[in-house]
């Protein structure tokens, strides 16, 4: 770190895990953040599948691993993102992904009350099981469906019959309700739209800012399994060469 004064900004990697019920838009959020892209109708809408190879769901049966840099005024954060599958049967695998995560994005769908319930379960689980300093952001996605102007006629939410009846505003969870809960639990809170991109960048920046300097590790650290799990091969070695080894000393 010190010896590398020429380097532009200290850079560290932050492990982030996305959790939330299936089809709330986790993959879309990541896609928006990583590629600034949005794929209409990205849910595994069953029948349309084979004819739209361009529409993919990252995490139908798996967890996808993506990386993206986030430039802050004082440093660069490289997010290592685990986009997990929302399907119920993968829930038991979740600990593997959040165990050493420094941050978590718990996503719900503002048009779908059950998804907030699920999100609360995730928050509780994270607070119980994840590393103590984990930064959790509660994110209400599909904000574009909230406004009367943005009525989607079910395109992005074909699975939710009951919400489709609502012509003007499909929002089912008020901002106040979710915000109150977030404050109570000490979470960051944002409402986003992966479709329009609204607030997506903000969420990730907020997380980056909220990560305590002290917990920042050099890039590449933090294995999928225990951080201590020894083999040199465990950790992404390509990045370890990074000059900054700022246990805590990185500039601020």
């Amino acid at each position, binding site marked *: 770190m010190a010896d590398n004064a020429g380097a532009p900004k200290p850079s560290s990697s932050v492990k982030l895990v996305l959790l939330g019920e299936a089809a709330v838009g986790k993959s879309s959020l990541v896609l928006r953040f990583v590629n600034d892209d949005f794929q209409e109708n990205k849910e595994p809408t069953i029948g349309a599948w084979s*004819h*739209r190879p361009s529409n993919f769901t*990252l995490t139908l*049966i*798996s967890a*996808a691993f*993506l990386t993206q840099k986030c430039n802050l005024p004082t440093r660069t954060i490289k997010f290592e993102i685990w986009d997990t599958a929302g399907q119920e*049967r993968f829930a038991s695998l979740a600990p593997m992904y959040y165990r050493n995560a420094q941050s978590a994005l718990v996503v719900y769908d503002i048009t779908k009350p059950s998804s907030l319930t699920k999100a609360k379960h995730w928050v509780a689980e994270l607070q119980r099981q994840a590393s103590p300093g984990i930064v959790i952001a509660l994110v209400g996605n599909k904000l574009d469906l909230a406004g009367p102007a943005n009525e989607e006629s079910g395109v992005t939410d*074909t699975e939710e019959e009951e919400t489709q009846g609502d012509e003007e505003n499909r929002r089912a969870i008020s901002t106040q309700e979710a915000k109150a809960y977030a404050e109570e639990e000490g979470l960051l809170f944002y409402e986003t739209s992966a479709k329009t991109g609204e607030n997506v960048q903000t969420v990730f920046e907020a997380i980056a800012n909220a990560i305590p300097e002290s917990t920042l590790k050099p890039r590449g650290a933090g294995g999928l399994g225990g951080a201590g799990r020894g083999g040199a091969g465990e950790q992404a070695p390509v990045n370890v060469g990074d000059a900054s080894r700022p246990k805590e000393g990185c500039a601020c």
Partner: protein
Amino acid sequence: MSTRKDTNPKENTSDRHSDLLTVSEDYFPPLPPRSLPAPQLPTHLPARPPPLSHRASTASLAAKATTAISLPEGVYAQQQDGVSSGNASGNVTTAPSFSEGDAGSIRSIAPTVSTADGGEEGRENLEMMLSEILEEDREDGILAGLGTLRASALPRTTTEADDYSDLDLDSDSESVDSHSGDEEDAAPEEQRLHHFRSHRKHFFILSAAGKPVFSFHGNDSIVIPHLGAISAIISSFSTPSSSTTDNLQSFATPTTLFTVLSLPPLYLLATSTLPYETPYHLSAQLSLLHSQILSTITTPTLQSAFKNRFNFDLRRLIGGTEPILRSLCTHLPSSTSHLLSNALCILHLRASHRRIIHNMLIQYRAPSLLYGLILAPHKLVAVCRPKRHSLHPSDLQLLFNLLYNTPTFAEVGTEHWVPLCLPKFNDKGFLHVYVCFFTEGLACVLVSADKEAFYQLREMREKLVEGMKKAGLVSKGGHAGKDMIIKAGILEEKVKGYDNPVATWGVRHWVVKERGLVQITMPRCPGRMKKKRPKPEALSPGVDAGQITPDAGSSSTGSNAADNTDTEVDTSSRYTSIWRRLWTEVHTPPTSGVKGKIAFITIDSPSEALPESSSQAPQSISKQRQALLHVTQPYEIYAIGRKGVTRDQMIRAVREIVRWVKREEERVWVVGGATF
């Protein structure tokens, strides 16, 4: 398709909250113990009424063997025998031409079918086969052929024509989705039902209690009543003590073949009106679907889910994997590789290049690696495996389907960590699979039993790709680009036009299967053809209206469907249909062995041209083309000749093919792969 809304798993799963790969107790409120599942109540019916045939147990795909990329010949032979005897039963009537000998020609088949529908559909298929495969001769042959077929078409009602005639081999599978847009939702129930019934293939998976698990077509409201009938039929033939072989396996109506795979707690049923599909084929398809379900949840989870609660709704557990099942349903019937015992298709690659990749797989092997695979679209490039373990072809088939038939993984550069059960490897537990498409179409698949191994496998992939770039096998170009390709393989195929190396010998297309290795090699399908359906329409002004009625309807609906899709029809299903027919020819009579068998079929492209459109269709060109299956000890060779090539010439050409394959042995097959 929006009609699936009701059956969407998410909805079913939305209220769940506990986590489960293992189904926990609170899932299932305690229920009074049930002694016997309702549908399995012994019905003391006579076991087999005449129209139903009990098949020999031929259900599994490449059932017993699990050598890496190989299947012992003995096992293979057993299967074949089983199949043969199964086919011997005369009750399967869907494919009326089974018994036709060498001289059977396409034209001669149709009229032998007495029932209008069967004949008609057979004809439609043949017509499609002709129109696609005979593309090289389309100036004369196709048009003439279409005209004749049309002219000789059996009369039938217009409504039937509208619904059925556009469903050729491909649009059958394609129509699955293209027909199921939103408008279908709005359509009246009756219409939807009609539409549902118009599909040529159906797959149903249901629990022994009759609950829906998966259906290829239709939504709950349509499917569930059918499921009632299905489970009633199946259960009335199963006795508590009956083994799988005693259960109902297959039955047929004049138009439709039904095949059942009873693997409690699941029943699987396939129906087909495609020509030349036998119970063996359907059963193999069902078996792969079953494997797909197991690969999602493993056998123990499946069993325990139903053990506690007989009427468990499995969709809660397999939620989200419908697209994968669906793509299996769509692609299996036309998959050459699946047809030939899930044989692996190998990327034609210079031996030294393959050796380099194999060496690197060993050199960079992560400590917890179980299998390492480099895959090209539907083809194996290289594999490394432990000496004592092997990959089963049907497991690989599932992997290929997952990677290349669903869009889940296709994004270049995105890494995935997939818990996956490979049922033929071990149906009781999950393996963890690292998947990364490092360039367009090329995937690095690293399998480990350690769920924490992601990072080491990731590192291995980085080294591998780096190594391949250094070795010049993958271009060093940008991160994601089409220019990055394995040179001697895909490059040869795409750029240098590694094409049908024996095309000049009078063979239009061929497949060679190495029986011992269970691998196949074939040139690229000749002619990436556009759909030919609109052709007759173009002609229609000149043609007698009475004659064209059925086909005019078909071509218009056909092209409508084609509008939705990108019109490009994979011709391989045409070939598959011919391979299937050849296969049936060889395996129909109960033979003691298949050694040295040879079968010919003749595909006619009829000569009588359209009376009114002579300008486009030169008259009286009548040449036949021959299709041939030659089974030898090491190989099965399937070939379709060019037009007018005689049988003698075909045989000579096949010898050339065999010679070529032997010469290219090292490039064409992967023997053993790299082992550690």
